[in-house]
């Protein structure tokens, strides 16, 4: 324990003195946010795809659908219950709303039920859908129609591109900053630092734990800084619980570190470790949904995106920041990340080499 604490504080000291490293990983996130913030500012939107099923076929429902079709905030497709739900399953839609037979009558009666289908298995899509449907209902309710959604009520947030991007940038920064631990480990081995440590009774597990702790502290600070910039400069709202957010940042950081340690254990040259890190992180940055939603990716890509830890990290961050999600809403992501940490750390400890 004494060794762990001392080593951790030394590692923190080293990170503190390694200003270039700290700035570069934070810089990437900030530059991305600034660039996208300036490009899209308040205007850019992720345009959600909404399926609409009209089983009532009255003049009122037709009129409502027409007004939706003219909306700029949502793209709609109209079809039967079966075709629209199929499209949702194929990840072409974010949600399907249904006006069942008798909808108009019920509306006149003062309380209409509107079933809504979400793609529950895809948190990002689900998030966008929830927001969209709320917006749509709000639009429709502009004429004071008493519509009740047959899902639990959620708060209505207007999701701008910059709002959507902020969690993605945090996820991306955590990935870039922490996968790089592999390269550092390899360079320590190459220059002989590890050889000297190997001559002491220090255990690999303690070295890994100390390095992880120091990196975690750094990542929490970096995430907080990025969030503060997003909140103050771009007025990105954060709806969720900050403690939960810190928890997800922690899980994401540990996941990336575990993968980094595996890279570090399996490679001999820093250049190779660096190349592998790049090969992993670059595709993951896009497929993991840091810059854009991967919900509309072709079906065959789903297993890939669902496998990537960054996908789950980004989803969980978005759920919390954009939608104020509780733990229950992100527990799938949390479980996947924990699985990555546990398995990754096991492999990392086995792959560890001093010399």
């Amino acid at each position, binding site marked *: 324990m*004494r*060794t762990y604490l*001392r*080593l951790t504080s*030394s590692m923190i*000291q*080293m990170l503190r*003195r*390694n200003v270039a490293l700290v700035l570069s990983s934070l810089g990437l996130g900030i530059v991305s946010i600034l660039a996208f913030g300036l490009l899209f500012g308040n205007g850019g939107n992720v345009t959600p795809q909404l399926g609409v099923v009209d089983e009532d076929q009255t003049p009122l429902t037709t009129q409502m659908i027409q007004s939706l079709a003219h909306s700029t905030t949502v793209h709609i497709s109209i079809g039967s219950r079966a075709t629209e739900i199929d499209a949702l399953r194929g990840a072409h839609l974010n949600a399907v709303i249904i006006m069942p037979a008798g909808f108009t009558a019920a509306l006149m009666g003062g309380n209409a039920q509107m079933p809504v289908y979400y793609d529950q298995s895809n948190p990002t899509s689900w998030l966008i859908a929830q927001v969209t449907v709320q917006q749509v209902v709000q639009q429709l309710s502009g004429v004071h129609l008493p519509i009740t959604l047959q899902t639990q009520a959620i708060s209505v947030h207007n999701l701008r591109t910059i709002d959507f991007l902020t969690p993605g940038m945090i996820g991306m920064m955590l990935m870039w900053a922490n996968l790089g631990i592999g390269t550092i480990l390899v360079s320590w081995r190459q*220059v*002989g*630092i590890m*050889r*000297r440590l*190997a*001559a*002491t*009774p*220090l*255990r690999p597990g303690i070295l890994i734990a100390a390095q992880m702790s120091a990196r975690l502290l750094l990542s929490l600070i970096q995430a907080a800084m990025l969030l503060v910039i997003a909140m103050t400069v771009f007025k990105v709202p954060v709806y969720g619980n900050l403690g939960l957010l810190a928890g997800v940042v922690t899980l994401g950081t540990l996941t990336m570190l575990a993968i980094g340690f595996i890279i570090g254990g399996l490679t001999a040259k820093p250049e190779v470790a660096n190349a592998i890190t790049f090969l992993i992180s670059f595709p993951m940055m896009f497929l993991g949904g840091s810059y854009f939603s991967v919900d509309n990716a072709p079906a065959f890509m789903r297993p890939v995106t669902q496998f990537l830890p960054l996908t789950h990290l980004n989803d969980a961050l978005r759920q919390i920041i954009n939608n104020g999600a509780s733990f229950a809403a992100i527990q799938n992501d949390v479980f996947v990340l924990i699985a990555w940490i546990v398995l990754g750390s096991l492999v990392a400890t086995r792959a560890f080499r*001093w*010399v």
Partner: protein
Amino acid sequence: MRISHENPSVGGVARVSGATLTRAAPPSVVRVDHLVKRYGATTAVADLSFSVRPGEIFGLLGPNGAGKTSTIEIIEGIRTPDSGTVEVFGLDIQRQRRAIQGRVGVQLQSTTLFPELTVQETLGLFGSFYPHARPVRELLREVALEEKAHAFPQDLSGGQRQRLALALALVNEPELVILDEPTTGLDPQSRRALWDIIQQLRQRGVAIILTTHFMDEAQILCDRIAIVDHGQIIAEDTPAGLIALLGASAAIAFQVVVPTGATAPDLAMVRQLPGVEDARAGLDQLILYTRQTEPTLIALLHLAEHAGVTLEHLQLHTPTLEDVFIKLTGRQLRS
């Protein structure tokens, strides 16, 4: 150039005397038994055995690439042998590595440390790896680095870095200290200061294994020396015992200046001189090892006069470890 037929008998004599002593002495601190280490096609350590007794300074000498570092790093638990066993404090290095490492102090042939940690922080950090650590101030004083406590390793001079590496070897009050070329790159004062430290350690009962390319250093410091070449021990004895192997009471070194028209006497001719045990050509000089200094000298001068050559830089010295080393390994060490 190497007189290979002499080596087996040399090694044999040394081992017999070593074994006799071992029986009387307390159990060894280090026992290396039939050690083999290969790197691909290279056999760096070829069936090497020796042991180190408590409180003794044991020197490993040998030309570059002889396998000294490989051997030492196996004892330190950094490298794994291909075959053979190493016991330290009666424990097996492969099975009880950490228990051993906690009681051993190590200075590698070249030490790289975290560039972002100061001298003081580095010593403190390494101290935390052991159950008991010496105060950082005390270590700094011992290696005369107090002024550099807040410097970073890369800002130290080469010799200061060596001293920091030495301090790291002493951080845990080790019972065994293993030093791989500890005085390489040190100025004469620092070298002597290190000798003091080593001798103080021995007085406290600490066993020491060291390698060096300085023969004077080995001769002064070591209680016993093993000369290693091609991964094998070719001689093992006390410095005096090794020097006695030469069978000569003096070494005569000289340069031959040959005027045009004259021919230089060759090695075979000088070997025939009375009393000469052995002769060899150094870099730009000849060296004779003799049992009878005076007759050899007189005959040598006659030979020179007869051949019409002059002898310059004529020197007479008692044989040193360096003479033994060159004779046994057949090459100049640091050429």
